[in-house]
């Protein structure tokens, strides 16, 4: 009890420091303090932090105790970068989060890149590189860039962030001008995928008797987007191929635990569009992920499985005043596309209304209401887990989210 009180006290103190810092620094011109010079090179550092509160009616969501109201929704990051020559730059970012049982305050190297741009139409990046997939995969952690406190989870699940967020390897990228037909931007990449032992696969796996210890795998793919064919219009497509191994263990008898190994090919395709006109931004994305797998439990061939999950969302955001933006989205996710979508186990729908207030240039506050229908399969690992919902899940979840973020 004392340790809980003490931890709560530290959280409140930490939050107070963040908010006081945000209030004080948010009103200042912070950019004067984000550069310093070493040996004639300008080094920039930037950072962000956010704190959220979620309160739901029945089901607990995203591993938080949201039915009681939860502040366990904190994240942040800092980066440093420098331009070494006209064409060559290096940088790195550390990211940390504590969202319920996810992240658990274990900092990770978010990205660390060396980037050489030969021409506008050809450059290379190497290191740990943020993966381009759809509109917002690489910016999903930066709440201050988005209208919504929680992005559509059909596309950007907070629990499975690590499986798409970055790869260790290399990219080729560039932008090709098409004169009066806008421009084409491309990215191609290959490398090894990220793994988060404090993420949804490990946490959700434990609930269904699979204790995941590692998920080594490769990741390669690409993205092609056409900007400004019509002024303000963007559309594109992404593909990501991930052959990987899931190393786990499972209990087969009261005192017998066997290694459980799954080999799967996880392939994702996404199509997306964005249209910006005046103060209005319209977004839409569709994603299909197929997984084909074979598995062994100890020496025994455990057979294979296949699933085809799909999701989409459409969103609209409108800036009604200089510092006020209103938005809404409809997000839909189906874990087993080829089966009936009616049961709550085979869909998660989320209808959202949101308001974002930019209190200063560097500090925002969001208020958002989610109306969710369905909760997906135990293997979906999308927000709803048995650990936080031991009495079972209700078909509908309403949730209020308040989130504030600060960046410099």
């Amino acid at each position, binding site marked *: 009890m004392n340790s809980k009180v003490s931890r709560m006290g530290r959280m409140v103190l930490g939050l107070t420091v963040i908010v006081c810092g945000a209030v004080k620094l948010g009103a200042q011109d912070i950019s004067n303090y984000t550069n310093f010079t070493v040996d004639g090179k300008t080094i920039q550092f*930037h950072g962000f932090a956010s704190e959220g509160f979620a309160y739901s009616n029945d089901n607990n969501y995203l591993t938080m105790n949201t039915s009681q109201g939860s502040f366990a929704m904190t994240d942040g990051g800092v980066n440093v970068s420098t331009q070494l020559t*006209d064409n060559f730059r290096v940088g790195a970012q550390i990211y940390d989060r504590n969202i319920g049982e996810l992240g658990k305050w274990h900092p990770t190297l978010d*990205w660390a890149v060396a*980037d050489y741009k030969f021409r506008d139409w050809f450059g290379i990046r190497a290191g740990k590189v943020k993966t381009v997939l759809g509109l917002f995969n690489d910016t999903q952690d*930066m709440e201050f860039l988005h209208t919504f406190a929680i992005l559509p989870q059909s596309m950007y699940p907070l629990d499975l962030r690590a499986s798409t967020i970055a790869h260790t390897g290399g990219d080729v990228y560039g932008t090709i001008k098409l004169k009066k037909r806008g421009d084409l931007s491309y990215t191609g990449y290959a490398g090894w995928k990220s793994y988060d032992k404090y993420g949804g696969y490990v946490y959700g796996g434990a609930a269904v008797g699979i204790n995941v210890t590692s998920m080594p795998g490769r990741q390669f793919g690409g993205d092609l987007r056409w900007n400004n064919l019509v002024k303000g219009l963007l559309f594109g497509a992404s593909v990501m191929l991930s052959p990987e191994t899931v190393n786990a263990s499972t209990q087969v008898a009261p005192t017998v635990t066997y290694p459980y190994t799954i080999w799967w090919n996880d392939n994702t395709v996404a199509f997306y569009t964005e249209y910006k006109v005046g103060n209005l931004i319209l977004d839409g994305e569709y994603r299909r992920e197929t997984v084909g797998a074979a598995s062994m439990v100890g020496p025994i061939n455990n057979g294979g499985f296949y699933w085809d999950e799909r999701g989409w969302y459409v969103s609209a955001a409108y800036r009604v005043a200089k510092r006020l933006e209103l938005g809404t989205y409809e997000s839909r996710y189906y874990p087993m596309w080829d089966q009936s979508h009616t049961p709550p186990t085979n869909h998660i729908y989320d209808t959202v209304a949101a308001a974002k207030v*930019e209190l200063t240039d560097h500090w925002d506050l969001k208020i958002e209401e989610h109306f969710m229908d369905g909760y997906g399969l135990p293997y979906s690992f999308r927000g709803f887990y048995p650990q936080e919902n031991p009495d079972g899940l209700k078909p509908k979840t309403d949730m209020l989210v308040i989130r504030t973020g600060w960046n410099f």
Partner: protein
Amino acid sequence: MKHIQFFLAVTAVAIFALSNLQAADIKVIANSSVGASSISADELKDVFLLTTSSVGGAHVEPVLAKGGVTHEAFLKQYVGKTESALSTYYRSLVFTGKASMPKSFASENEVAEYVAKTKGAIGYVSAGAAASGVKTLDVK
């Protein structure tokens, strides 16, 4: 009917004159290392959106003002984004490791001083601003 035609003609002339006045209010300046004497509006937009880092084969970097009438007019006329949208755009690049934040200064004098001393720098000031040691680029 004649009154309407006259009104429309006067309005058109006024709009044309105002748009030219607005264009003339901004002076695009560059460091003397930038070889070009002119820049197209598309190139200028690409420079400030960081989608190109060269003009006429020379490396360039954008320099911004932190606010003001000239800044707002420049963004509207040449970049096509509001201050807020541009800030979001820059931050999306900075926090994903794809670019550094461009330099920005509180006053036109500081913009002009930085452009004068920094190889490849391209900035903007109001047409009447004194900006010594820099070249003025014609925007086509």
